[in-house]
């Protein structure tokens, strides 16, 4: 029942996103049939062709009818139309840039876990207040400095001043160091903070006092009694953080001239290339709908009582 309700909400959300995407392109000035007819042509398309396309795509029908046809084309054929700028099919442009973004996001996310888990764990259980404050300060610096600024400073120092690494573009592993490092520093700041507060919350519970009073070893208390129950809230919170990862990648891709989805989006918005924006909106919408569904299901698993109150907002 709970899962069904969540799926239904996810479905409603997808309909809203697709409606938004559909209307975004329809509000474009100009005759859509003419735009499509002129794709990949040197000369102006003949009027018969324009009429034929109008018929085929149903542009002379009422809007709801058009929406259904459009949705059918998108879902069944993966046909997202053509870029008004490069004249290429939108689907292939998105698919071409996708691996680049996934590579950046994947490597960064992995490294972030390696850094933020030990730091967050340490800050969460240490009794040394200076150490805790120091790690929190580091984390704060990481997430408070804008990603683009961190990236430009990194380019200035490591590529321009000391000439150690290439500044922009893609190539071997040397080209990956700066973008990945900058994004990792930023994201580790967020994640360290999350892991620390999850650990603190559980470390303050009375049963931890009992465990200490019983004389259990510190390592056992930290790993079994604190970390284990904190793990699922941490994973859930890390999933919520994926939004930050995504926002970070589109800035990093633009600064370092990587042709990923983020840069494609920024360029398309600057060029007002609506079919491409529409394609990316759909793709991002679906990805985050799935992530959100995962978060909700994890919450339900985590705390069956939450199922009753879900929709009251996730408060952690």
């Amino acid at each position, binding site marked *: 029942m709970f899962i069904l309700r969540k799926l239904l909400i996810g479905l409603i959300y997808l309909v809203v996103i697709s409606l938004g995407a559909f209307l*975004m392109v329809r509000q474009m000035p100009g005759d859509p049939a003419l735009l499509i007819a002129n794709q990949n042509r040197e000369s102006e398309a003949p009027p018969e062709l324009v009429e034929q396309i109008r018929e085929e795509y149903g542009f002379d029908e009422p809007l709801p009818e058009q929406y259904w046809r459009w949705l059918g084309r998108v879902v069944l054929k993966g046909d997202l139309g053509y870029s008004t700028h490069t004249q290429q099919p939108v689907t292939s442009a998105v698919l071409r840039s996708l691996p680049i973004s996934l590579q950046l996001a994947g490597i960064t996310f992995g490294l972030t876990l390696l850094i933020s888990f030990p730091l967050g764990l340490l800050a969460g259980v240490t009794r040394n207040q200076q150490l805790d404050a120091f790690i929190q300060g580091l984390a704060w610096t990481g997430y*408070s400095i804008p*990603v683009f600024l961190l990236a*430009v400073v990194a380019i*200035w120092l490591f590529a*321009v*001043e000391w000439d150690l690494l290439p500044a922009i573009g893609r190539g071997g592993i040397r080209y990956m160091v700066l973008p990945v490092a900058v994004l990792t520093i930023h994201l580790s700041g967020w994640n360290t903070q999350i892991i620390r507060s999850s650990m603190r919350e559980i470390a303050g519970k009375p049963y931890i006092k009992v465990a200490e009073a019983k004389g259990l070893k510190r390592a056992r208390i930290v790993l079994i009694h604190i970390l284990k129950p904190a793990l699922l809230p941490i994973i859930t919170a890390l999933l919520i953080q994926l939004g930050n990862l995504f926002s970070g990648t589109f800035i990093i891709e633009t*600064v370092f001239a990587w042709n990923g989805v983020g840069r494609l989006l920024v360029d398309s918005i600057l060029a007002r290339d609506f079919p491409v924006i529409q394609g990316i909106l759909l793709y991002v919408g679906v990805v*985050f709908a799935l992530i959100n569904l995962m978060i909700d299901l994890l919450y339900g698993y985590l705390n069956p009582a939450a199922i009753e109150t879900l929709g009251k907002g996730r408060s952690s």
Partner: protein
Amino acid sequence: MIRKALGFISLGLLVLILLACFFPGFVSPYQPNAIEFSRKFFPPGGPHWMGTDELGRDVLTRLLYGGRVTLGSALGIAVGSTLLASLWAGVSAYNGGAVDELLTRIADLLMIIPGLLFALLLVSIMEPGMSSLVIALIIARWPGYSRILRGQIYSLLSEDYLLAARAIGARSSRIIWHHLLPNARTLILTVFGLSFASGIISISSLSYLGFGVQLPNPEWGAMINAARPFLQIRPYLMVFPGLAIVITILLTNFSLGLLEPEA
């Protein structure tokens, strides 16, 4: 004690910076867009405290006028999103039941796409310009703040004086405006501070990418973008606006220490 002192000093400095940005004439005699090729790339010092850029424009002056855009927009975002979030959270928590459910769902729906990205998508269908950016960021950011506030207001609702107010027949709007929101003041101010800092980050990031401000008008993120070709010969062109961003965020964060309860 130290936290409070730091908070007061930071808030004072922040106000000074804002004043300097909105009344730049008292600090600098130059015009932000006045091109003077004979004075290009003057290093910091002398009559140009922060030097001049590739067109001979005074960097300090551009920093002040740019701050007007960056900090002014961030203030607009903070006011707009905090106001909207407070109202939404107040109405939602106060009514409870189906209204609460519906309002919370709408807010949740808006939060699924990451904020900065959502703002960008909104900007793409609006007129280019700074005000579109501010409006888009308000729309993208308020649901998150509303979620924080709603939980807090919910716990305020169980207080006795609210029951008393209701018992003597106070109207809903009166209870929300006169009882709930004033008592949630600390929290609302904290959200205001956080949204101001996040506004500085969002505005400068999007301006860096080329959205919002129209050239040649200055803005901190746009200034950093314009400084990139000259990183090798004139790094200060990037360093000064960069420091301006980091320092204002830092001061905002320290100012928030004033709102924390005495230990």
